[in-house]
């Protein structure tokens, strides 16, 4: 899976030069589409063996070994205050992102395609958006059939905010 992404990244590298468009890795959590800037994403992983960490904040699902590095797994449903996944739904995929030198594996239901999105489709967060989502989202992209919530990785992984909220 990881390889998949790398080839796609390189084949579409040309488009990055286009300033109007940005590339995003799309993921689905509870049927909502979210996007991460493609350059923030290190890996896309299938289901992993995760070591639970007792006493950890609820968002932390555990930690896993990614090629010799210890990566903290974050349950996106918990992080976004979404209901836990029903049994058997979703393949349990993860995207690995880096934040302040640490790797985090964000557990999502499914990883979609990499999309080129133009600035024209970009909107700021609607004022009525749930404050928790507003906190971690840097904006919304209008797609044909759905909306994509753009995730700000640094803020997503700044747990002190969520605890304060």
């Amino acid at each position, binding site marked *: 899976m990881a390889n998949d992404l790398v080839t796609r990244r390189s084949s579409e590298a040309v488009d990055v030069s286009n300033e109007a468009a940005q590339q995003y890795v799309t993921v689905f959590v509870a049927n909502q589409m979210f996007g991460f800037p493609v350059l923030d994403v290190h890996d896309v992983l299938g289901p992993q063996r995760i070591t639970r960490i007792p006493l950890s904040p609820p968002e932390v699902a555990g*930690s896993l070994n990614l090629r010799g590095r*210890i990566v903290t797994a974050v349950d996106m449903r918990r992080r976004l205050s979404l209901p836990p996944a029903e049994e058997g739904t979703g393949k349990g995929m993860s995207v690995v992102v880096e934040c302040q030198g640490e790797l985090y594996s964000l557990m999502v239901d499914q990883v979609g395609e990499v999309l080129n999105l133009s600035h024209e489709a970009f909107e700021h967060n609607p004022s009525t958006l749930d404050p928790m989502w507003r906190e971690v989202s840097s904006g919304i992209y209008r797609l044909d059939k759905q909306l994509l919530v753009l995730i700000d990785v640094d803020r997503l992984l700044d747990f002190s905010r969520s605890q304060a909220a």
Partner: protein
Amino acid sequence: MDDLLSEFLTETVENLGTLDVEIVRLEQNPNDPSLLGNIFRLVHTIKGTCGFLGLPRLEAVAHASENVLGRFRDGELEVTPQAVTLILASLDRIKMIVSVLEQTEAEPEGQDGDLIAALDAMAAGETTATIATTAAPEPEPALEAAEAADAGMDDSISSEIGTRPGEVSLDELEAIFQSTPGPEDAPAAPVPAATPAPAPVAKPAGNDLVAKNGGGMTSAETADSAVANQNIRVSVELLENLMTMVSELVLTRNQLLQIMRRYKDSEFTVPLQRLSQVTSELQDGVMKTRMQPIGNAWAKLPRIVRDLAHELGKKIDLKMLGADTELDRQVLELIKDPLTHMVRNSADHGIEGIADRLAAGKTDTGTITLNAYHEGGHIIIEISDDGRGLNIEKIKQKVVQNGLASEAELEGMPLQQIQQYIFKAGFSTAAQVTSVSGRGVGMDVVRTNIEKIGGTIELNSREGKGSSFTIKIPLTLAIVSALVVACRGERFAIPQISVVELVRASNNSEHQIEKLNNVPVLRLRDRLLPLVSLAKMLNLDDQPAEAGSDSFIVVTQVGTYTFGIIVDKVFDTEEIVVKPVAPILRSISLFSGNTILGDGSVIMILDPNGIAAATGEIGVAQDENRADAIATEIMASRTRTSLLIFRAGDENPKAVPLALVARLEEIDCNKMEWSDGRPVVQYRGRLMPLVPIVPGYEVKRSGHQPVLVFADQDRSMGLMVDEIVDIVEDRIEINMKTERPGLMGSAIIGGKATEVVDAGYYLQQAFADWFDAESQQEVTANQIGKRVLLVDDSPFFRNLLTPLLTVAGYDVTTADNASTALAYCEEGRDFDVIVSDIEMPGMNGFDFARAVRGGRWQEVPMVALSSHTSAKDLDRGRDAGFNDYVAKDDRDALLQTLSQSISVA
């Protein structure tokens, strides 16, 4: 540039960078004591170093800022933006001076009077009297004689110092300095050059040195280039990276090996073995690059001590033993400052002035001894002096003054515990603040630093005789050996270093977990071990424990506090590489890190310190009192015994040690039979006599009769009682003796006056009266009339065993301590066998055995009687001269062993 100066500059620039950040943080956070402490230390370090390098302008500015910071720290001055601005201004001044120093190797001309006056005014803004209550951290004197990478000549000097165990007097040192041409000369020269006006702490000795070695420059340069060919400078960072990579390699290797175990005869086997071997060698090699002799950390000490001695008018001899003991660079760095601080303390506060020494009947020269050696994966460093020792009265005063404890509390404290107060923050008994010490950021920092690297520090001081500190630290931090345990299906690693032993606990084994008001405890040998359930601690309790009621107890020691961690399973020990946990998890104090095991899974490393703290043993690190209290409690519990409380005959509660009672039975009175006017009952195919507690005891004729069954060999005896009340754990301390047969006396048990029953008496009654003939047959002829010497400090055991042994046919003599026993030896008395307790006040059993073996009784068989019966204890006992080792409560084994020992002899 001068090595000393360049090291000082690097360090100062680094510190200044940190300071800028910290002071700004302070402004936002004016009440953060740790922040304040940190800033204070940094400035103090700069100041201290200046003093040693002779940079008076820098020192003056730093000293003035330090005074203001000291007032902040003690809460006597408010952190206002104006104050912060002033501090920042003085930092800027320091920076300015430092940058000129960097370019010209000399302090710039100029006056700082205005700045210093402003700082002093601020410091004096309120009362001025209390500065005296604080003391100093480690001024970094930057006299690094042996920068390792600089190798060559520097090393030769330091090793020369190091390899003269205990013989480096000041004169000799000077001789070495003089006779050694080398880069050392070069560094020394520019120092005075950089000092336009010598500091008040100027060192005439240093100047002498320079004068004598003025012409050493050229020879030093040639020597240097020759050395340079064989050594290269490698940045520490590079080595650290290498080490990290090798650690990763080791982990991957382990992983591969684990996989390969599943595939036999694969073509990968041979290359993998080779890889494995190379990896191990590489690991060793890289580890070695990190190992440095501890002498490197000591190298600047002789100079410091010498300068201090001059300054204070004392004569001090510094002995350094084991300077070539190697330890990890990282560890070395971390202990360098604490070590320097402690040596300074010894020189400054410990060693008395010449007049005082002579008055105290000591030689005029005080001695500070540093000793380092390896001991089982640890390095031990001892720092001792023969000075005045800790002044207990002063400490007490200070404790009361700082509100740490009341006078009444202090009265009840053992000396050792009072001494521990010197490890508290802000605690200095130095009467006045000098430019080098007395500000109270001393021993607490030392201890914190040592504990940070998993070490411990112990203090031993005798007033008038001197003090000694013992530091125990791990050799390396990078790779540790850890015990892998499981709890509710999750695996965790516990650093092997804090694991004392493993105990398997189950309902049908010797060890079982008991509950005291739902708090689990374990009786381990002769002490009661507090237990913590890992599942409960980690909130894993909602999941069912795995099948089977067996659990394991990891007996863990943190400082003086020993406790057990209950886990479900214990796996292997594994070498692990400690990796820090993700920032989000750092707040969980129970984990010290995480790692990847050979099978590729991630595992959390438990922090015994954190667990101890979480058990309510709050701050084992910070709060020695509680740990001590627990330790004392544990000591007290050593003499505790489980007692069965019952009533019989009258209303008074009676007690008998539970260990002696084989079973509790209710006998149907219809089955009770009478023989010769005494009740008997058929019990397990034999006749069991039922003994009344007092003659004329009214035996029940109907219903059920509760009976305590005492079993001895294959015979049993029942003691008839009215009611079984309780089982309690308490100390038996006979307060009142009694003449009444069958009673040992009265004791307070569970808050009530209780009669302690002499089980031996009833055994004797039953056996002597009823089984006389039979027991005579059973007693093998060889033990009749044999003389036994029973040495035990506990009157209870003496009283218990004496009748038992007498019944078995021995002639018993008792002694309540080892000295009495040895006195019998001198009196010319002879015994056929000696039975001795191990834990006794004064001379313990091991020493007693050695004493016996060295004297007239060397052929007499000896049997040790102890509640410790592990293989290790056994070996220890054998080494000391015991022929055999018997558990205290196992009477059958004792009788058997005695009879064997005698027949062998």
